[in-house]
């Protein structure tokens, strides 16, 4: 479905963000991409969605294949048509438009009837949005904005959904709710999911497989179960640190990784 091979990404010609990343998401699969700040997670999302040129970046080497098609240098519109929708980090909705208008913008490819039905479906799923459907989206709460974004993504009729840090700035309870919603959507629509997160604990609950990215490289790859059993992943991303020789241990492990 999605296959990234040995991808190298640079910004402004010199800043190396991804240094040979390979990753796969199979049909109907949910995969988490974890990693600390600056690891290159968002760069990978941009590269997959064809949005690197908008961030002064480009693919230096490697390939992105989408649904069996070569998509490395495809434009965002073409990629979206193939069936990939990426929700970028930072709540990328249209703040001056109302939820209704946001949904209309997202469903721009749908014929009027399908758009109307799609919107009704979204509002049925998120009643809070329906109550506030004519207010400017910028005034919605963080959780409501995240739900609106998921609704918008649905109206693009994706086969593969990429979500970049949906938990950012949300209360733990809302994070849980967002994750449950993603899980439910995946089940109902038969979507594939690539979930990019710093909040490993939240993400691990709903995915099949995990990649951990650090400084532009994949440093761990395995099933969600394996990730939870792995000492390093647990320590660095789930905050389960041992007391005592912490610093020394951290250094030793880190060395083994890189």
């Amino acid at each position, binding site marked *: 479905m999605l296959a990234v091979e040995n991808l190298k990404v640079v910004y402004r010609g010199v800043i190396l963000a991804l240094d040979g990343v390979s990753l796969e998401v199979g049909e109907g699969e949910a995969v988490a991409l974890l990693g600390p700040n600056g690891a290159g997670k968002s760069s990978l999302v941009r590269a997959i969605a064809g949005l690197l040129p908008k961030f002064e970046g480009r693919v230096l080497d490697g390939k992105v294949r989408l649904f069996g098609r070569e998509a490395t240098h495809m434009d*965002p519109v073409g990629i979206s048509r193939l069936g990939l*929708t990426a929700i970028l980090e930072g709540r990328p909705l249209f703040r001056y*438009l109302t939820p209704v208008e946001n949904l*209309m913008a997202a469903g721009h490819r749908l014929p009027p009837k399908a758009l109307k039905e799609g919107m009704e479906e979204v509002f049925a799923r998120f009643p809070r949005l329906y109550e506030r459907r004519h207010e400017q989206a910028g005034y919605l709460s963080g959780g409501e904005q995240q739900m609106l974004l998921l609704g918008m993504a649905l109206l693009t009729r994706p086969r593969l959904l990429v979500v970049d840090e949906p938990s950012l700035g949300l209360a733990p309870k809302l994070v849980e709710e967002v994750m449950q919603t993603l899980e439910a959507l995946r089940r109902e629509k038969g979507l594939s999911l690539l979930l990019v997160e710093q909040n490993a604990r939240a993400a691990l609950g709903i995915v099949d497989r995990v990649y951990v990215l650090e400084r532009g490289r994949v440093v761990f790859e395995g099933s969600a179960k394996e990730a939870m059993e792995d000492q390093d992943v647990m320590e660095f991303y789930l905050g389960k640190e041992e007391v005592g020789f912490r610093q020394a241990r951290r250094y030793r492990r880190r060395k083994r990784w890189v």
Partner: protein
Amino acid sequence: MGLGLLWLLRKSRYGILVRAISEREVAALALGIPTARILAGVWGLSALLATLAGALLAVASGVDHNLVFFGLKVFPVAILGGLDAVGGALAAGFLLGVLEALSQRYLEAYLPGFTEALPFVVVLFVLLVRPYGLFGQREIERV
């Protein structure tokens, strides 16, 4: 025609896309909205409207070297209404027209030449109170 434009931008599906792109182009691209094509359409439409307005103006008042001053007056209208508000430009144009006519009739005797400056004075004061223009969009701030 102004009202038609207003409808196009506020209510039609096309107008919603235009406003979406103008607010956040990258987000629009990520949703697969063909931004390049729509922006080209907007530029084309604005060129068309400007040409039309120019032709109408030429018919109404002729073309001479004083045309520059007319161009200058357009700025206060756009700014007063709010740069992002089509309806605002309509209302502001009307308002400034009326103010100018009144000043021509009643103020010119005491302050000769003041009418020329009036639009700019009005803009100055309005911007003090509403920096986004009379009908412009307020910056969304959340605490």
